[in-house]
């Protein structure tokens, strides 16, 4: 209920200072705190007992969205509420907006960040799933000064596990802008509205000049393993125009290739049915958004 003892608290105002603080602590001692909407749950329940908290709220440089010509670069400390309001996400990246708009609740969205969410990679979380479908790149700096860019496929390793090492800080998440038409969407189902997803699905499709799908990415959450690619669902979409048969083939393929768990929230079979139902809706929306 109350955090265990926290010996040090720092609020550096530059990335360099963060890296220095990381370097000055033994492994497992320090914790980078972004919005804290998940981390504080773990700290209060004493699942995490950091000796030293490095609060990233002072890093103004991580709080901006840069809409560059070829890429969209979102600072790690950009909050969900800012993602929802940003016009830079309006076209190709609506899927990320869908996810951000329904994370937790208003108060969570006022504080929680994209960087915090992708680094935490909770077993059932919206943002990593959308980032995975949108093929985001995580830009990290290590305490030894090394700059790393890790693509989403390599970044999300499993629940509460990512390719970010403890000596890294996430600077931004970037997305390549598609030269041809593309669209994305995300939707989740939970027992109550906007709860952690029992099933969450994100889809991204890219269309060639005649409107047929030349690239598709689908990501899933709620299967107990964190954000995961559902590549089996992508192939049936390639070359299609988003017709019901292709979409059904996509969702059926996902179900055939995904082990869905049974837990307090849903049975395995029901999760599969949600994949069919929400998956179809999400893929269709992505196609629609790509064609308009």
């Amino acid at each position, binding site marked *: 209920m109350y955090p265990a*003892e926290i010996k040090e608290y720092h609020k550096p105002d530059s990335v360099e200072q963060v890296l220095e603080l990381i370097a000055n602590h033994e492994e497992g001692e320090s914790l980078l705190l972004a919005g804290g909407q998940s981390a504080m749950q773990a700290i209060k329940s004493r699942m995490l007992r950091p000796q030293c908290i490095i609060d990233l709220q002072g890093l103004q440089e991580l709080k901006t969205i840069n809409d560059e010509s070829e890429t969209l670069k979102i600072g790690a400390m950009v909050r969900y509420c800012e993602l929802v309001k940003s016009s830079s996400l309006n076209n190709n990246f609506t899927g990320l907006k869908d996810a951000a708009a329904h994370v937790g609740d208003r108060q969570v969205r006022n504080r929680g960040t994209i960087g915090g969410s992708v680094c935490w990679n909770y077993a059932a979380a919206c943002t990593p799933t959308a980032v995975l479908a949108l093929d985001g790149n995580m830009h990290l700096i290590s305490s030894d000064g090394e700059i790393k860019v890790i693509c989403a496929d390599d970044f999300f390793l499993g629940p509460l596990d990512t390719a970010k090492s403890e000596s890294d800080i996430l600077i931004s998440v970037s997305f390549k802008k598609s030269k041809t038409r593309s669209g994305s969407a995300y939707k989740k*189902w939970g*027992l*109550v*509205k*906007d709860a952690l997803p029992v099933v969450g699905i994100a889809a991204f499709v890219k269309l060639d000049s005649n409107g047929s799908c030349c690239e598709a990415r689908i990501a899933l959450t709620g299967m107990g393993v964190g954000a995961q690619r559902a590549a089996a669902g992508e192939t049936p979409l390639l070359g299609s125009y988003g017709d019901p048969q292709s979409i059904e083939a996509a969702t059926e393929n996902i179900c055939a290739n995904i082990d869905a768990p049974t837990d307090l929230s849903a*049975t395995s079979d029901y999760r599969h049915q949600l994949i069919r139902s929400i998956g179809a809706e999400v893929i269709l929306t992505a196609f629609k958004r790509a064609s308009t």
Partner: protein
Amino acid sequence: MTSAKDPNSIEWLGERLARKEDLRLVTGKGKYLADIVIPGTLHAVFVRSEYAHANITGIDLSEAESMPGVVAIYTGENIKDRINPMPQAIVQPNLPAKYPTFWPLAVGKVTFHGEPVALIIARDKYIAEDASELVLVDYEELPVVLDPEKALSRNSTVVHEKDGTNEIFSMTFTGGENEEAQNSNEAEVNAIFESAPVVVKERFKTHRTGLTPMEPRGVLCDWNESDGLTAYITTQRPHIDRLALSDILEISAEKVRVIAPRDQGGGFGVKAPFYRENIIIAYAAKSLGKPVRWIESRYESLMNVGQERDQINDMEIAADLEGNLLALRNKGIADNGVGTTGVYWGFVMPFLGAIELPNAYKWPKAHISLKVATTNKACLTPSRAFGHFPTRFALERCIDMVAHKIGMEASELRRNNLVDALPYTSVTNEYYDSGDFLKVWDTLVEKADISAFRKRQSEALNDNRYIGIGFGCGVELSGVASDLLVPMENQPGYGAATVRLDPRGKVQVFGGDAPGGQGHETTTAQVVASEFGIDPAAVVVTTGDTGTTPFGSGSIGARAGSYFVSAVADACRELKEKITRILAYDLKIEARTEHFEFTDGEVIYIGDRSKKSSFVSIVERIIMFPINLPENEVGGLDATAFFEAAKPMICFNADCCVVEVNIETGDFEILEWMTTEDVGNVINPMVVDGQMHGAIVQGISNAVFEEFVYDDQGQQLTADFENYKLATAADVPNIDIHYATTPCPHTPLGTRGIGEGRPSSIPGALTNAVCDALTPLKIEITELPLRPNSIWEKIQQAKQP
């Protein structure tokens, strides 16, 4: 607070007066238990059992005790010779049951996951939690008892060994007092079933769920030798808690004062039992001579309290082809949990649920019996709709199934069988005093417009949309009469209130019950204002302090609108008698109370309206200038009245909802919710509306979203709000209320108490609507919770050839 009065209204009754208590609550100035500060207070944290059933083989306190800031640590072993064990008569029903012996901290073994094992007292709550992690308890695990049916079998492990059985309570509720009469009644019922043209027989299961006040429990105790114990407790029944603390800790009763804070963050029955935490915190404060405070965490709360409704009901209904109900047969099995909670012990809820099972229907014959099993789970604690949520779900579902079998509208079948002449005594010997069930029902059905709905439904079906309508209703107790409360809880039913006038014509009202948000300060002020013809702003209400209020059995069972306000009105009338006696004497007229009118701040002689006094002047004259009084009259204006109706009283509600089911996922949306209720005369419609809204949404949330889950080792898996899901604003519908009132003839104001009937009519109405929507698939749902997942499974089964 505004006292804007409708200029056309003579009285304050029936006004939508904005609540007096809101001004402090919307500005953050409420005083809840955790807001009360006594300098030097120590903080308590419980170490709770990690196992559902295990022997305690050792507790190592050495590390925890040596932590700086830790003041004391208690365990079962070091308190058991100093504190009287439960049960104690004051918190034990007059019902034949096996009452387990227990202390506030586990002695010898633990019997559920979350049972208090040790108590840490420290200077700071953070340090207390640190120390609690250092208490090392060695457990030797025992086989767990989790399934109530298996618990009742002869070879089951027994939770409380001294009883030799897990059957804590059993009873037959029909046929009379003795076994022979009950058996012959059962034989008659069996005979009806054998020859009945229509019989429906089903097993209904309701899950473990209940209510969770937003403010968890808490206790703050202060002790000094001269005044004794002052205990601030989040409680609905401070006077009972006081007597229990006195008996258990052997502190003479005049030295125990219990104060339920003026502001309590909801109760809903959860704060009605006498809990073991109260005992040990009071004991710690007394033995340390320092104030000690415990504030429950949500985790502790979800592990320990608010768990109810956990039942299996094997129900059968016999009917004829015209839709007349012929007989009801029900065998209930309730999962009691450990049964170590004062006042209710778990089984009192299923007990009342069985009594109230017949509901508003005429049953020529019935056989109703109940067995309650002790298990290694948290004890059942009361939650609004005390006991009858499970049985009413089963009954309302079963009635729809009878209607489906006959091919009749379920609403019509209900109407045909509603009790149509009151008073009425039910097959379980429950007395229904007054009201008009048909009026309530017809009001609802008219709004629902079944024939229009059926048209809409078939059109929707053509578009492959599945919509359905469902009904449910409920007779609820309007207050609990002594006739029932004495045997059930060993407590009186009467309402008590003290009304005290001051020389400025202002009024203080004192009540021994302890509300938690129902608006007593406002509705009571409206009653007083109406009686004296003054502004409600002049009335101040004090509740919950045993040092200042008359004895009351607590804020339970819809006692406010029935018993408490009636006592308030009676006390006002007693004072009006005295005021008018003296005023008549002063005015030198021969007149009695009924010849005077109390209105707009004046007391006026009706026979000659120029003969009058301002209310303030006559009150001041009687209190401050008691000279030249009539013979045998003394000054002062203060009255305590006790109200008890000659017979128990009831009120009646009916609910209807329309849902749309997604045939692909089993997900459903509530499109409309309509409700009608006979609440008697209404004191404040806005407050009554709020009670209905809250209860209906609690019913929806209980039926659909909430469920306490234990794993097969008895580990509680749902002790936080991430896993125990409450409905949010985005999950529930708006509610359309229609009143169909009949004044209660047995209360001075014609009012009835509401608040306890729903949410029990809700799960039936909702599930009936879902099944109605799925009529083409002939799906009958018999289990709660009503989850999209399980509906989808039913749809899949129905689609199998």
